[in-house]
């Protein structure tokens, strides 16, 4: 006969105030298999825990139930106490009679009755628990970072500098992300490239970092501490070790396509280097643009390459890597101008988005830092900046606030004034959100020092009219209709999860929020962890962020990853699914429903990979023959709990 001990906590008056703990103890003492039942004012206190330890020893208890607060709070406390008394941790269970009983009821009799039932059902459960030891697995002490923007770069460097090998995967030919496109950064106005390139170089030179540009994560398997990753390395057709950056190839290349780096404000050749400081410093042959290699249609680039760096026979490679932790920093894209019906569907040449304007301002940009409007390369004298373009508009566009637009628009207006002193900058805004160190001061500076004109209100229409860009809006403060014949309009487009992030998220089994940003495990307490163990989030992939935030989160993610990588072995809850082989017919339904691919068919029966299994039990509800059940929460245990709940 099992010998169960029950301990009822008063929690001061938190429980005893509404639940008659003495009565509960007395009822439980009569419950079959309960050989000890007592109540105490604070079970979680040292004397309280000692009561348990003492009773286990004196009464030779083999199971313990503590009726107290939610298991989320003190389960560990009491399981450790039971351990100290010589029991296996899983011989102890918590009956939640506070949050789910005493705190939500007033009627003393009813609350007491309910507390009794909850405790009884917990007794029925615990007495059928088995002793379990945590599962442990060795850790692969390397990390994978997906995305070579500022967040990915920062995370990689932090990991590498802590002594862990890092594989940094970037899908475009160079790392640097959007930050490298920026001209200056708020609120300090220091040059973006100047502060980023040193980090990029550090990455490329770092012995612990294996940089894989022009590559994409194809498939991922395994589990925290032991992931297997398949990475597709796209062919660049240029051997970057041979290439001496002489730039002869681009001169002879007959093909011109829009240049992504300048967001189409300039063109590039089919063979190209994204930008001078690109890392890795090498050329890439864009096979989509190239007239073709099978058969070789042009071949000029190869002809002029003295160092024979160009290799048309380069093939895509699949590279497999083992890692213990993964940081996802896939960043953002701007919400496409073409979605903005009211602002001319992006068809008006002098209506730019924020990033295009950055390029215009940038010293390395298409205009070498002069602000000239695309249509006629004239200096715009009146520029209208429109905030919340596509943001905060649940009806038509994105419901959320893209967070950084207020600041960079202020920066844009300011930069414009620094370039065009006699120009006028207007900013249409809904609100100005300038929370952050030095941010509000920055906005004030734009207004006071640079005379930027802020107009509160939404722009209703933007259209071309004899060489000007007409902007119709309303100043909601004066209620006046406003019409501006601008030379140029800059839209602060909303931030969206970067292209293809969704597909990747599916491969990684990452949850996404309704807007497609990656979901964190807990909005407050676990902001850099994903719901899947071993996967961490950094940068704008998780939500719109400015640079300092992205960098901070990246370092946070790196630190979180290190908590895994720094371990010899990882421990995993042993309450996992178990197969009753004699009942299994191998129908494979459980294999299909398992969210973690933890179940596999092997000669007509299923097997559980205990390390992959998270113990959700969906398999057991699916199995028609109860042939697979979760340890310590078996269908039999639930069945007995049901009986106890219904007072029988």
């Amino acid at each position, binding site marked *: 006969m099992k010998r169960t001990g029950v301990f009822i906590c008063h929690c001061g008056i938190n429980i005893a105030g509404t639940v008659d703990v003495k009565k509960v103890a007395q009822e439980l003492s009569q419950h079959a298999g309960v050989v000890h039942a007592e109540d105490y004012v604070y079970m979680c206190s040292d004397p309280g825990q000692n009561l348990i330890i003492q009773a286990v020893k004196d009464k030779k208890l083999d199971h313990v139930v503590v009726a107290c607060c939610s298991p989320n709070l003190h389960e560990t406390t009491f399981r450790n106490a039971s351990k100290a008394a010589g029991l296996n941790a899983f011989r102890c269970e918590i009956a939640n009679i506070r949050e789910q009983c005493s705190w939500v009821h007033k009627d003393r009799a009813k609350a007491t009755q309910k507390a009794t039932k909850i405790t009884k059902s917990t007794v029925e459960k615990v007495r059928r628990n088995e002793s379990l030891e945590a599962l442990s697995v060795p850790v692969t002490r390397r990390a994978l970072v997906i995305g070579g923007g500022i967040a990915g770069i920062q995370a990689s460097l932090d990991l590498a500098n802590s002594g862990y090998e890092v594989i940094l995967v970037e899908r475009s030919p160079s790392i640097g992300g959007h930050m490298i496109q920026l001209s200056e950064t708020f609120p300090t106005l220091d040059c973006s490239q100047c502060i980023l390139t040193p980090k990029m170089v550090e990455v490329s030179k770092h012995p612990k970092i294996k940089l894989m540009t022009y590559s994409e994560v194809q498939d991922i398997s395994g589990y925290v501490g032991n992931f297997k990753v398949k990475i597709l390395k796209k062919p660049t057709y240029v051997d970057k070790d041979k290439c001496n950056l002489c730039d002869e190839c681009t001169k002879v290349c007959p093909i011109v396509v829009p240049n992504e780096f300048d967001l189409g404000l300039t063109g590039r050749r089919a063979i190209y280097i994204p930008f001078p400081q690109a890392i890795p410093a090498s050329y890439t042959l864009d096979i989509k643009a190239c007239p073709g290699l099978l058969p070789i249609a042009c071949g000029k680039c190869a002809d002029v390459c003295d160092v024979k760096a160009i290799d048309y026979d380069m093939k895509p490679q699949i590279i497999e890597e083992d890692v213990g932790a993964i940081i996802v920093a896939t960043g953002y894209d701007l919400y496409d101008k073409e979605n903005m019906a009211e602002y001319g569907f992006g068809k008006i040449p002098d209506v730019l988005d924020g990033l295009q304007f950055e390029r215009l301002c940038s010293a390395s940009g298409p205009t070498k830092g002069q602000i000239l409007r695309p249509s006629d390369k004239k200096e715009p004298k009146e520029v209208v900046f429109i905030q919340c373009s596509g943001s905060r508009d649940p009806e038509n566009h994105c419901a959320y606030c893209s967070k950084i637009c207020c600041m960079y628009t202020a920066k844009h207006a300011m930069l414009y004034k620094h370039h065009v002193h006699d120009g006028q900058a207007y900013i249409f805004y809904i609100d100005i959100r300038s929370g952050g160190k030095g941010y509000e001061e920055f906005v004030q500076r734009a207004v006071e020092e640079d005379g930027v004109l802020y107009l509160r209100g939404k722009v209703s229409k933007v259209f071309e009219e004899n060489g000007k860009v007409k902007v119709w809006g309303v100043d909601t403060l004066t209620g006046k209709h406003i019409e501006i014949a601008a030379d140029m309009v800059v839209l602060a487009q909303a931030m969206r999860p970067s292209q293809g992030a969704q597909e990747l998220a599916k491969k990684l*089994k990452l949850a996404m929020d309704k807007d497609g940003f990656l979901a964190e495990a807990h909005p407050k307490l676990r902001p850099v962890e994903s719901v899947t163990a071993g996967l961490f989030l950094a940068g704008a992939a998780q939500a719109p962020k400015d640079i300092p935030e992205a960098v901070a989160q990246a370092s946070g993610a790196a630190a979180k990853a290190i908590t895994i990588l720094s371990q010899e072995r990882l421990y995993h809850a042993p309450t996992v699914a178990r197969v009753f082989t004699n009942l299994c017919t191998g129908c494979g339904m459980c294999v299909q429903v398992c969210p973690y691919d933890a179940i596999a068919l092997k000669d007509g029966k299923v097997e559980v990979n205990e390390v992959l299994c998270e113990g959700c039990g969906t398999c057991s509800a699916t199995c028609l023959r109860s042939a697979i059940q979760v340890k310590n929460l078996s269908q039999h245990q639930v069945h007995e709990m049901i009986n106890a709940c219904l007072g029988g």
Partner: protein
Amino acid sequence: MKAEEFEPRIVAFLCKWCSSAGSDLAGVSRMEYPANVVPIQVMCSGSVSPLYIFSAFNRGADGVLVSGCHPGDCHYIKGNFYARRRLNMVKKLLEYVGLEPERFQMSWVSAAEGTKYTQIIKDFVKELKPLGPQTKLRRTR
């Protein structure tokens, strides 16, 4: 027994991560609701077998509630989607054989929805009272 005296006995299967946490939150926020529900914490609504529901009614439950995470919020990614399918079939079956539809209910309650949990229990109890004790499926003797 008169409806107003009758106190329905309800078993509630709450998933650990959302609904049980939501119920905890209701407690932390000291919301009040009737004491008719005895909760059983399961890992995921996806683990609630139809056997549990039939068995609960067989042992005399007046009502059974299954509550899990909102679609997309499942701690186990998709367990609640399977639950939604499976238990929809159970509900249709029970109604088909003539059990009062009110007696078996399902809800999505997130860890942040203490208020919603409270409301669901209040409504559930309110709807069950006029029905009186569930004697149809209950084991006699």
